[in-house]
């Protein structure tokens, strides 16, 4: 579904990603790991169109998307849940969700999408009219995920959804991720929590200083391999 070939991305003068090549098959959960600064978030932001690569290509279902604007990429069915949630603090929970259906296509099915989100996250339904800023960290994360679902994506990118959340909430969120995937969604997961990431994904890539240092089925990784992939190239 997603093909990335030889991607080079620069952050100002810094080369954040070099020669990244990776594949995401439809219906899978793919995990991206690596130390801080390895380029995980940069990769997701580039796929979503917030950053433009200097060279290389990103193809979604055969169509090249790396030159497109973020709003056009959303229309093609890719949704990013950004790091730090970044919900709209001045809008209510309901409006945050509805604005997720901003695209013309998504607006048509917004009632059904809203129902789905409230099924997944009954907590949000209770707090429909509360301001985004008044929610707790876990609730904001749920809202960010729900919001991303409202645009009717077929590929969702999750950027460190467990940051700052309690273990119980993290468990619940990951069960939700699995559930979303079982219903047909393709998922790319960036995570700092290695164990949890490896339990959830069927394919993992480890990044180090902007390059892919290890890839494969995480169940076959040894602790040694992982450590080396993180820290020494």
């Amino acid at each position, binding site marked *: 579904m997603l093909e990335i070939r030889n991607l080079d991305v620069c952050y100002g003068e810094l080369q954040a990603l070099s020669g990244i090549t990776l594949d995401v098959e439809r219906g899978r959960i793919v995990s991206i790991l690596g130390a801080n600064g390895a380029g995980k978030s940069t990769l997701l932001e580039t796929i*979503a169109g*917030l950053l433009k690569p200097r060279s290389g290509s990103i193809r979604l279902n055969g169509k090249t998307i790396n030159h497109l604007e973020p*709003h056009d990429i*959303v229309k093609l069915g890719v949704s990013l849940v950004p790091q730090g949630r970044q919900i709209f603090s001045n809008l209510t929970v309901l409006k945050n969700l509805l*604005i997720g259906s*901003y695209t013309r296509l998504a607006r048509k099915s917004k009632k059904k999408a809203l129902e789905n989100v409230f099924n997944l996250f009954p907590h949000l339904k209770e707090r429909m009219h509360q301001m985004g800023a008044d929610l707790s960290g876990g609730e904001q994360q749920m809202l960010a995920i729900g919001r991303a679902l409202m645009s009717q994506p077929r590929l969702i990118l999750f950027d460190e959804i467990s940051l700052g959340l309690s273990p119980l909430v993290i468990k619940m969120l990951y069960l939700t991720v699995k559930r979303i995937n079982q219903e047909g969604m393709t998922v790319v997961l960036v995570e700092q929590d290695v164990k949890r990431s490896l339990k959830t994904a069927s394919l993992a890539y480890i990044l180090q200083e902007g390059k892919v240092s290890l890839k494969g089925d995480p169940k076959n990784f040894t602790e040694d391999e992982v450590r080396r992939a993180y820290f020494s190239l």
Partner: protein
Amino acid sequence: MLTFLEPLINGILLGGLYAVIAIGLSMVFGIMRQVNLAHGELMILSSYFTMFFLQVLGLHPLLALFLIIPLMFFVGYLLQIFLFNRGMQRGMEPFLMISFGLSIILQNVLLLIFTPDARSLKTALVIKSINVFGFFHIPLIYLVNFAVGILVFGLLQQFMKRTYLGWAINASADNVNAAKLMGINTKKVYAYAMGIAAVTAAISGALVGMTFTFYPHSGTQYLIIAFGVVIIGGLGSLPGTFIGGLVLGVSQLFGGRILGPGFQLLSGYMILLIVLTIRPHGILGRR
């Protein structure tokens, strides 16, 4: 006591006009974090358009607004798309420069076409006034200005609260990257916002043309009024801008009554300084 009732009431009514003058500036700053130095000139441009329609087509200013509003919307929209959007990236300086340049160009084009003569939109409205219990007069145009002010603010409030575009504008002001991730074309949203700001400038320009005399260079004094209103009322707040307008209007007329007509402007600025000292982010300001 009664002598203060007149400046109070007229000040409030005038404040409604000041609020409409300021809302365009407030919106552009609240949504795009930019200051449009050509805001006053957009207003005066509208005053001249209104005059044109009055003299050439015999259209009453309030009716001419139906033509001028869409016209000015496009002016604002196109300005943002073709001119201002390029200056959005690196801080506030590019936008300031571009809008400043635009203000100079507009002023001089108007000067060229319409000469520096003083103008005013003479309609029946302007001359009439209401006699309140025989004690004082309220110019009818002031009432019209206030009513239009309430209407404009009410419509804007509802628009921001209930429409998808209103939410999109809100979201883009809150977090531009997250807004992009919602499928919002933020460049287009900014253009719509600038279009709306230009519409408010258009409305206030027509009203100003009917209330006061204007020249090609009048834009500057209204820009300053707009700044004053926004500072008093607080940036990024719709009700704040309205209240700021009322406060400025009342301070000006009160000061003019107590200290003398020459002190009208000064009284307004004194209140501005006081607000800056005790509540720098404005009465209802957020950031």
